[in-house]
């Protein structure tokens, strides 16, 4: 793997001495056995041991750690709960992992202003729990919300089932407090509707820990809908289900959630959660409506009419909160359910225009034959975000390599169909080669310049998210004339 191992040469002892002067003993891990739990995030296929793990408890310590690393030229990888699926928090062999786990306090919930000020290590679901007594909640709900942290959500611009109606993280954050690699503290965004200057909030959210370290987050809270109900529809053709999704949108309905599972996915899930899915169907759709009881009744009746016209073979509407949760239980448990029927699986995260859904699923079916691996599909149908789960057995020689190639082909097809290589998991280390497919040299150069504007020495999370032009050239997606790279002054990591 190409990272900056050759660029960074850290004196482990000197680094440990400096960090010991900043942090109390219980906040610093340097022994291999203590570092082991940090060697990967949710993408376990890639592992690396860092030189040290810092667990700061105050912003002043974060400032000192970053300043020190900047001075010594040591790479820093910030980390939340480590639930990321693209290796964004995989350590650097010559660097420090900066765990924000101890920044776990909710500082303020303001009912009237409808916002919460939280530390980055606060779990996503904890914010909604704290806001619940006021009838409010935090809308973005990644599937890992019980464990994932707000800081990680900001770094990855996380999504979830509610994105279609309520937006991604970028639409729900008002302000962040950031420490630069040079140890400078600044705030971007505001509790007001906008802030002066460039929209740096948009730039920082989803920047995968490459531009700064977040020490405080102000999130927008929204009123909890009085009622939510879900319609479950099954189809005997995947293409019909895809057309039904388009028909719902065309009818002017933006559901609170619109999710799809194919037959292999329901087959894996049903014995596990007994959600009552139609196992004979080629695909099922879950369409949630939320709002006042009148609003929900109106929307459900319109959705039902659209689904009927689109050729659904069976339609069921949840009649109680318990039933609604049971319908969702299968979708939410899809990953662990697939985990039960295969030793390993590889979850992809491409986004495509909705109208290309059937085409993509047909292509994936062909790839299953080509790579001799099975694949189950669950996805956010409303926004075209696919999560193919490629099943493999890491113990069998060659299977992981085939799974990886299978995943790469799906992503590259996503780009060709007019979509993106990631909808919510980020690029991390996982999709770094596919960035060379999604973007041309020019855009990648701009990304490198932006990176340099925040982190001139390239110390924050090196080797992630934005590939070096050299890497793209090796991946064969870029033509480098006579081996000359443009902008030689920019660091390539």
């Amino acid at each position, binding site marked *: 793997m190409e990272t900056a191992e050759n660029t960074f040469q850290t004196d482990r002892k000197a680094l440990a001495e400096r960090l010991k002067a900043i942090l109390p003993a219980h906040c610093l891990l340097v022994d291999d056995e203590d570092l082991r739990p940090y060697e990967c995030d949710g993408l376990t296929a890639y592992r690396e041991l860092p030189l040290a793990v810092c667990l700061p408890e105050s912003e002043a310590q974060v400032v000192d750690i970053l300043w020190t690393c900047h001075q010594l030229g040591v790479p820093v990888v910030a980390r939340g709960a480590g639930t990321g699926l693209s290796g964004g928090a995989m350590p650097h062999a010559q660097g420090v992992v900066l765990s924000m786990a101890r920044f776990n306090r909710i500082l303020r919930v303001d009912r*009237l202003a*409808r916002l919460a000020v939280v530390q980055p290590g606060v779990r996503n679901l904890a914010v909604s729990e704290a806001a619940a007594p006021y*009838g*409010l909640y935090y809308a973005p709900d990644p599937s890992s919300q019980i464990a994932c942290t707000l800081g990680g959500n900001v770094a*990855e*611009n996380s999504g979830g089932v509610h*994105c*279609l109606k309520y*937006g*991604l993280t*970028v639409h729900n954050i008002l302000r962040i407090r950031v420490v*630069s690699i040079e140890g400078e503290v*600044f705030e*971007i965004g*505001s*509790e*007001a*509707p*906008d802030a*002066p*200057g*460039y*929209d740096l909030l*948009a*730039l920082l959210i*989803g*920047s995968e820990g490459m531009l700064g370290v977040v020490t405080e987050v102000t999130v927008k809270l929204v*009123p*909890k809908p009085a009622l939510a109900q879900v319609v479950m529809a099954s189809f005997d053709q995947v293409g019909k289900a895809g057309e039904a999704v388009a*028909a719902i*949108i*065309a009818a*002017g309905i*933006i559901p609170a959630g619109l999710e799809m599972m194919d037959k292999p996915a329901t087959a894996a899930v049903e014995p596990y959660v007994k959600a009552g899915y139609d196992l004979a169907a080629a695909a099922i759709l879950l369409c949630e409506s939320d*709002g006042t009881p009148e*609003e929900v009744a*109106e929307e459900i009746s319109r959705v039902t009419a659209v689904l009927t016209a689109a050729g659904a073979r069976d339609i069921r509407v949840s009649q109680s909160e318990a039933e609604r949760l049971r319908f969702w239980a299968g979708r939410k448990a899809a990953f662990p359910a697939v985990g039960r029927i295969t030793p390993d699986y590889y979850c992809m995260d491409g*986004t495509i*225009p*909705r*109208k290309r859904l059937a085409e993509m699923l047909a292509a994936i079916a062909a790839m299953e034959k080509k790579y001799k691996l099975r694949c189950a599909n669950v996805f956010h149908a409303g926004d*075209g*975000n696919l999560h193919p789960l490629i099943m493999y057995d890491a113990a069998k020689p060659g299977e992981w390599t085939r799974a990886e190639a299978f995943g790469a082909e799906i992503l590259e097809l996503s780009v060709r169909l*007019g*979509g*993106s290589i990631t*909808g*919510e998991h980020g*690029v991390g280390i996982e999709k770094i080669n596919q*960035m060379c497919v999604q*973007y*041309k040299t*020019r*855009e990648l150069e*701009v990304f490198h*310049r*932006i990176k340099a*504007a*925040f982190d001139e020495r390239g110390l924050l999370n090196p080797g992630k998210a*934005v590939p070096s032009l050299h890497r793209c050239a090796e991946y064969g997606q870029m033509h480098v004339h006579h081996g000359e790279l443009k902008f030689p002054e920019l660091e390539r990591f």
Partner: protein
Amino acid sequence: MRLSDLVAEMIGAAANNEPLRIRAGGSKDFYGGMLAGKLLDVSAHRGIVAYEPTELYVTARCGTPLVEIEAALAECGQMLAFEPPHFGRATLGGCVAAGLAGPRRQQAGGVRDFVLGVKLVDGRGLVHDFGGQVMKNVAGYDVSRLLAGSLGTLGVLAEVTLKVLPRPRAEQTLRFDLDEGAALALLNEWGGQPLPVSASFWSAGQLWLRLSGAQAAVASAVARLADQFGGQTVDGEKHWISVREQTHPAFAGTCLWRLALPTTTPALGLDGLGAIEWGGGLRWYAGDAVPAAVLRERAEQAGGHAVLYRAPESLRCLEGAFAPLAPPLLALHRRLKKSFDPQGILNPGRLYAEF
């Protein structure tokens, strides 16, 4: 005007180190810092490139008039949900570059929330494609949204892809007689309840409230608010256009300040308050009775900022349109500007005098 013509103009300007003033409809010439540089008229680079109602996006060239885009969307029952002002002949490029949203901002979000992708010509004449046409794309830094409100200082937004939304099925307006403090208190209370409030406007003792959404939801909210708070149902269509276009008398005056504040900021008690929008988050002060420094300080103390929105040239030169940036942020802005426009030829001084 083709993209290649635009690129050629940019390369020529870069070669001559010649500052450019990017302009299409010119409807927002009043906004921001001073206009400087040779005119780069992009109004002829126009036309809708793609519109997919079921995918919820529209892609159009920068010189396309907003009215043209909105007419196309209306045919399919859709809209630009941030309800941008037209000020006569606003175009898509200027709309995104200025980042100004209208009354629906409080419910739907601002301009940046709807930007999905851009085709950008930077200060070297290089064409870049950032973002795309899908709702979710988190690959690479989100440059597309960074460009919303950047006032053309980072490049020409040759093409923009925006997310669009269905028009609400029902819409009703209520009017209440309330003083400033009572209106602010109620707006914040209502904001925390599941009410379909899509716009609010307070001026001179009257609060206007627009409710949008499903038929049943609007009808029940209107009944409840009328009953509990004495709101009267009124025909709001012309009113909301006058707010969006700022032709309402509350915006009149030689000098107009725009204060973006936390919605819960109490009445500032300043002489010359014109109007309150966005549930209390946006306050307009007309007139020049309060010195600029005082307004800026008051806004900052409240956790917001003040923009000298519309003013005579002399005052804009003296005060600058936008609130000054903290030193680390200004340094970042300068470095970002340099990375897109190394020679500093794009709309110099339009955002900040420093670049």
